[in-house]
């Protein structure tokens, strides 16, 4: 195909009066947008390659660069907007499945932004987190029906294994291979310092990170990459990945070029081979097969570790979740349709799955109706953006949340949506050593610690405002929520009243 219809998405504007030809942008742009013209001693830019990742903008010492949406406009109409047209250009050019990264960008309602929180006035005092203890610790895992004590008050019941989170936030699954070694190390070290957990994702665990085992949740996915006895026993908990919010119902594909020495050793696959996670677990074709996998994992780890099951938020998530609890899972992880991904077919990411808020509310309510909510923990994932999202998720019924996109943004991601190219300029979703080096774990893990500590202070402030001093009193406390711009049905599913009621 000679003629490429696609025009550049972004325009690079260089303020000549500020540019000092220092060529920092030339070195730093992995997409080779910037180039130095020796002859005229001028730096110029090729708009077509720009993905607007802001690497050059951030590092330019004189702030001479501005990246703008390319002014060229289609003669749009509301049906055939620019995006729709361009997607056809691309597909008619390549003939391939459209791939995209990060979460679902479509303008579906974001229910977090339509739920408001309560605060106590007069009838009960708010609690000041600076003076009073404010507890955000949560215990994730299976809980017995009740506790039995003998006559002189000694506890008889033996507690199943639970993991303790100092803050009800964990780092979501991002496989070793889709994100870089330094990104994984930053997540691991931050999890350790914060007293929370990070998820290895379906790419196995690098042996050098075994030392962070007590803050690691090891994932077992359909590809079984890097899964062996020692791996399972290293983590503090195991998570079976059935589905992912961004691509419910399909597997994953890590291109061969990303599988270097390090990744191939961790995933136990040959160097350069494509790592394909098949869509279903080929040993889980129905719920009872899941029970077998859960108990075989428990067997191999001596029943000393909680086993989570992660599903994508789909239509009958409530029924699935209740089945999973009855199948012996210690915690259910639900990943909403806005959950991030390194690479997923655009059509699936934009159209499959349901919002996490509705899925969460439905699952929590269903488990309560069946009286089994207290048996297990419920963790939600998929575009938790800030601490108020966390509080609203917990109030709707979650025990804790996973954050993925928020974590990588803290590590420097600028949402340029081109992780699938593997040339992440911030050293996150890349395996090129010179790019991976750009993410210095010694500095970057501190950013994650700062982010989560800040969120924790905010959560404590929000709790204090509601007159609560322990996070478990917020869990499922839907009276603390009110809805705005929501219809009756949405309020009913969320189980919350409209503001003013």
């Amino acid at each position: 195909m000679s003629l490429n219809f696609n025009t550049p998405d972004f325009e690079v504007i260089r303020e000549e009066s500020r540019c000092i030809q220092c060529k920092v942008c030339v070195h730093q742009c992995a997409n080779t947008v910037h180039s130095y013209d020796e002859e005229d001693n001028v730096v110029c830019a090729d708009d077509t390659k720009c993905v607007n990742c802001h690497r050059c903008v951030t590092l330019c010492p004189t702030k001479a660069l501005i990246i703008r949406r390319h002014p060229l406009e289609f003669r749009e109409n509301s049906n055939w907007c620019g995006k729709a047209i361009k997607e056809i250009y691309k597909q008619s050019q390549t003939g391939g499945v459209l791939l995209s990264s990060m979460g679902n960008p479509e303008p579906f309602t974001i229910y977090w932004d339509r739920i408001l929180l309560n605060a106590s006035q007069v009838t009960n005092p708010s609690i000041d987190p600076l003076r009073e203890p404010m507890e955000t610790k949560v215990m994730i895992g299976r809980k017995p029906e009740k506790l039995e004590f003998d006559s002189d008050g000694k506890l008889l019941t033996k507690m199943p294994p639970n993991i303790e989170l100092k803050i009800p936030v964990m780092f979501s699954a991002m496989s070793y291979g889709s994100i870089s070694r330094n990104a994984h190390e930053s997540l691991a070290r931050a999890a350790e310092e914060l007293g929370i957990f990070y998820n290895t994702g379906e790419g196995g665990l690098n042996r050098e990170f075994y030392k962070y085992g007590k803050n690691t949740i090891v994932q077992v996915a359909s590809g079984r990459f890097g899964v062996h006895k020692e791996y399972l026993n290293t983590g503090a908990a195991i998570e079976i990945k059935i589905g992912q919010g961004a691509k419910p119902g399909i597997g994953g594909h890590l291109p061969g070029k990303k599988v270097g020495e390090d990744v191939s050793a961790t995933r136990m696959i040959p160097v350069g081979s494509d790592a394909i996670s098949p869509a279903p677990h080929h040993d889980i074709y129905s719920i009872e097969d899941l029970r077998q996998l859960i108990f075989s994992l428990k067997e191999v780890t001596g029943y000393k570790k909680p086993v989570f099951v992660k599903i994508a938020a789909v239509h009958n998530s409530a029924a699935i979740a209740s089945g999973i609890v009855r199948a012996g899972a210690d915690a259910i992880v639900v990943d909403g349709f806005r959950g991030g991904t390194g690479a997923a077919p655009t059509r699936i990411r934009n159209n499959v799955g349901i919002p996490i808020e509705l899925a969460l509310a439905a699952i929590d309510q269903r488990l309560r109706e069946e009286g089994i909510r207290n048996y297990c923990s419920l963790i939600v994932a998929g575009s938790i953006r800030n601490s108020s999202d966390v509080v609203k998720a917990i109030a709707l019924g979650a025990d804790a949340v996973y954050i993925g996109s928020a974590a990588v943004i803290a590590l420097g991601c600028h949402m340029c949506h081109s992780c699938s190219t593997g040339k992440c300029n911030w050293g996150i979703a890349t395996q090129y050593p010179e790019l991976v080096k750009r993410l210095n774990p010694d500095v970057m893990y501190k950013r994650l610690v700062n982010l989560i500590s800040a969120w924790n202070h905010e959560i404590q402030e929000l709790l204090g405002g509601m007159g609560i001093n322990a996070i478990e009193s917020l869990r499922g406390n839907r009276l603390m929520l009110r809805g705005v711009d929501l219809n009756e049905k949405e309020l009913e599913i969320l189980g919350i009243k409209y503001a003013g009621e």
Partner: protein
Amino acid sequence: MRKIYAFESKCLGCGLCEIYCRTAHSRSKDIVKTHKRESITSAIVVEEILSSSTISYFALQCRHCENPKCIKACISGAMYKDDNGVVRNNKEKCVGCLSCVLVCPFGAIKKNDDGKTVSKCDLCVDSGEPFCIKNCPNAAIKFLSEDEARVLK
């Protein structure tokens, strides 16, 4: 005394340290003016390492030796060591003979474009943390005491 140590595994070779070094030692202290009008030589140099499989870099500047050869080689007494051990160059007395350049084993002293003086790292003594360290995007250079450095060698 604290010195600047470079860590090759972290250096991106972006060159920002050189830019901010020039600016810190310029008259105008403004990045654009420094580079467009003044001609200041950076006291730090980013070098590319050719041997390793992937392209990697490191930044190097004066090591402020305990027993500096450059002071001994200096014919005008322009090179001196101030009371907290920082090896410095007095622009007034320097005649640009480059005897110091001839003996510095690190090649960390450079002739200024004005030809009359030389530029070398003075650890930005009067502004606390050196500007190159403040502006390194990847913490590839650190301001460490000798013991801290030995630990991270």
